[in-house]
């Protein structure tokens, strides 16, 4: 019995002595620590990708704590992380930026863009640009030697085995921008994932020079500019520049582009659909439509035909909100004008599943 | 029913998904040191399981009493107590095994598995779940020890649990039961486990894909 008592006593004594010691040390070596920093570090993703512009997550945590960076500085974590960080430092999370992904602004695959010579050297784009500016005939082309692949911390970018050009896996891409920073040819760019049309060419050259080198390069023909009904396209340095504020997503530019340099998200092209129950036959939509895609007599139900580009100009104009913009099911028929085809095209994706 | 299922999941978690040795790579010191013979592996595994279960239980029970700041010393005291108990018990009942495990029994105190579970699980979860978690983790640890030690004993001494297994013409590869062999065999086992896990995940993913299609 005494043994137990002695044991307990000794243990208690040790504990007491040491706790006193610890307290003393704690007093002497007290460091005013900012617990917020550790909390912030905790919520950051921890990939140390450097996408924020600081040297890793620790550095960003320091910066945020010191007030040198804002709550939504981490591009990888997105809004979720920004909100948590904001909660810790007690500020507003800020608005979430549009969901962006890295985009390869070049379609010069090995079968489309010529090679200048047989490159013999290090498999790295930066190294290759030092040798006669890379072996692609077009000086703006993706070299496809994978510098971006090695820069990506998220395994989201790869060199296509057959076309020898970078491809982004949009599911994995976090828009950290590492690949954009590292690409010597600047063919990578962060763009909103939802863009309907993109100019996938950076060749700021005369058209004949471009077409000498590449089958899919922009030749500066200005067809897109001319076809755009909304004045959203201007030309600069032999390349179209899209004003995103004016672009309606009609994708006409992509449709007319002779080379394919203007890419359109044609799989997700939209079409106007007029709810037959709601339509009052006011004819405003018909008037607004720039593509002769809506027909119908006054006071009767209006129809949309295959010419519709999905620009959506009619939608806000409809006084009874009868027009929606579902994704269209088949390719637009450019020849369909009012009076030439039946207006039964628009079958929304979700309702159109056969059986 | 769901409660039971849940506990079962917790238990299996310790054996498969978060196997302390193969998946979390914790508690390497005893794993490498005593896995030269299967009986040692079993002994160590059980001793660790005992400590794990009880320390998890006690810490979970005390989780609302122990202040956040002194939790580490508290864990240490709780764990050390059970280790001392196990040490004394083994000395009394299985002196030979206790002798062969030597210093590694008191060293259970500093086994990262126990600490990790106390810190990341028992301190936050109710007693029953903690207990089962301890059991699962202990079982996972024991199984890993048995696996590693049987490979090492078989190749290194040609025996299993002390009984001659390999044919007489087999020359046991003595290095496997020496320290380098421990490192290398565990490394190779980890490679195998990693490959297996990867294959399983791939299989699961493809199955999930098929199902969704």
């Amino acid at each position, binding site marked *: 019995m005494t043994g137990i008592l002695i044991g307990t006593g000794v243990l208690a004594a040790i504990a007491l002595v040491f706790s006193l010691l610890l307290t003393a040390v704690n007093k002497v070596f007290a460091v005013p620590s900012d617990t917020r920093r550790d909390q912030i570090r905790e919520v950051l993703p921890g990939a140390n990708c450097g996408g924020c512009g600081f040297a890793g997550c620790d550095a960003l945590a320091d910066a945020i704590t010191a007030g040198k960076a804002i709550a939504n500085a981490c591009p990888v974590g997105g809004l979720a992380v920004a909100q948590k960080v904001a909660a810790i430092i007690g500020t507003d999370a800020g608005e979430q930026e549009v969901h962006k992904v890295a985009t390869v602004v070049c379609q010069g695959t090995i079968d489309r863009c010529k090679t200048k010579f*047989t490159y013999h050297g290090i498999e790295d784009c930066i190294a290759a640009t030092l040798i*006669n500016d890379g072996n692609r005939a077009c000086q703006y082309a993706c070299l496809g030697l994978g510098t971006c692949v090695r820069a990506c911390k998220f395994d989201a970018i790869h060199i296509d085995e057959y076309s020898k050009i970078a491809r982004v896996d949009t599911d994995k891409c976090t828009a950290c921008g590492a690949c954009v920073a590292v690409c010597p040819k600047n063919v990578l760019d962060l763009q909103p994932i939802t863009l309907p049309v993109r100019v996938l060419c950076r060749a700021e050259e005369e058209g004949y020079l471009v077409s000498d080198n590449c089958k899919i390069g922009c030749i500066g023909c200005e067809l897109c500019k001319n076809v755009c009904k909304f004045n959203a396209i201007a030309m600069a340095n032999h390349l179209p520049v899209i004003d995103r504020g004016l672009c309606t997503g009609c994708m006409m530019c992509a449709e007319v582009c002779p080379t394919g340099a203007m890419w359109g998200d044609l799989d997700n092209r939209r079409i106007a659909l007029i709810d037959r129950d709601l339509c009052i036959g006011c004819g405003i939509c018909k008037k607004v439509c720039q593509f002769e895609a809506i027909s119908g007599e006054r006071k009767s139900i209006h129809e949309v035909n295959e010419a519709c580009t999905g620009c959506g100009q009619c939608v806000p104009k409809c006084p009874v909100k009868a027009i929606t913009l579902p994704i269209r099911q088949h390719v637009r028929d450019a020849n369909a004008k009012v009076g030439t085809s039946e207006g039964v095209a628009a079958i929304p994706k979700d309702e159109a599943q056969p059986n | 029913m769901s409660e039971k299922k849940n506990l079962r999941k917790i238990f299996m978690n310790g054996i498969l998904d978060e196997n302390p040795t193969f998946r979390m790579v914790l508690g390497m010191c005893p794993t490498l040191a005593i896995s030269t013979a299967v009986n040692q592996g079993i002994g160590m595994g059980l001793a660790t399981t005992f400590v794990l279960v009880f320390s998890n239980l006690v810490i979970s029970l005390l989780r609302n009493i122990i202040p956040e700041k002194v939790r580490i010393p508290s864990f240490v005291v709780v764990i050390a107590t059970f280790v001392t108990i196990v040490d004394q018990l083994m000395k009394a009942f299985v002196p030979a095994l206790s002798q062969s495990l030597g210093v590694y029994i008191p060293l259970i105190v500093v086994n990262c598995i126990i600490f990790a579970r106390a810190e990341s699980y028992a301190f936050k979860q109710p007693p029953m779940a903690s207990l089962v978690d301890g059991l699962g983790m202990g079982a996972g640890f024991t199984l890993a020890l048995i696996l590693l030690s049987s490979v090492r004993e078989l190749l290194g001494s040609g025996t299993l649990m002390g009984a001659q297994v390999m044919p007489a013409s087999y020359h046991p590869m003595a290095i*496997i039961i020496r320290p*380098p062999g421990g490192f290398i065999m565990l490394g190779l086992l980890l490679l195998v486990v990693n490959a297996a896990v990867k294959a399983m995940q791939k299989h699961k993913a493809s199955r999930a894909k098929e199902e969704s299609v």
Partner: protein
Amino acid sequence: MQRKLVVSSSPHLRNEGVSTRRLMLDVIIALLPTAVASVWFFGGAALNLLLVAVITAVAAEYFYQKLTKQKTTVSDLSAVVTGMLLAFNLPASAPWWIAAIGSVIAIVLVKQMFGGMGQNFMNPALIARTILMLSWASLMAANVLPHAGQWVAAAGADAVASATPLGENPASYSLWQLFSGNIPGMLGETCKLTLILGGIYLLVRGVIDWRIPAAFIGTAFVLFWIYYGTLYSVESGSANVLYQLLSGGLLLGAFFMATDYVTSPVSPWGRVIMGVGCASVLFVIRVYNPSYPEGCSFAILFMNVLTPLIDKLTVPKPFGYVKPAKPGKGA
């Protein structure tokens, strides 16, 4: 005429005289006399082991690279060198499967699993030898008596020596016996004459740097001299400098193992440290460690472990190096 010119980075000239393959070939050439000597002294068993080790090593490399879908690099001959060196570290009495296991360990575990040629941080042949020795000490005992030249007659049974040159009760061998290789020992360790010839060939061809062997042998010489105090005398048995230098794997190690590019430091001073370190550890093990009569492989392996550290500490200063300017002083 449109010709497709090749465009690559400067320089556009290469030293045609050196290539990995050529270097390995040189090592093989340097090892060949010793191989012949080992067959001369130990007979068909030696030839057997050499063949098994080399063939297994090459096959292991080939199949590993096929299996992991890499480009096969068997043609750089490095596997052949590894196989030969491994066989040189086996006693004539070793069974063939030991050579095979050793080769597989050396090639797969030590070399290929760490990235292949140039990526292993320890000498494959030595690791394999040591693993074999720690595993099957009795089978790896180097106590087969040589039957110089009469191997056809003696092929039947291997005569076993009661004592090896080094060990607990070292037998006394004359210097000439030690030098010519007419002593029990590992296949490639015994004949010092051919080892020195091979070493000189490598030095002349510029394949190996003189610093490692010089520092190795020199340090060993000095240490044993200090310890034994006598250069050579018949009475002192093994306790003299020349006896120590000429027995065991010291020369094989100094010329062929410690100089392995991959596992020795790159910088000149690092190489000196490597040689000195090898000799020191060898000395400690030979003199103070009764459980291993021969410490050469351990000594080299130990220095292999330290090689990355030595490399890190002996990085040469760039030409015209200036210490980073202190703030205020300007660049």
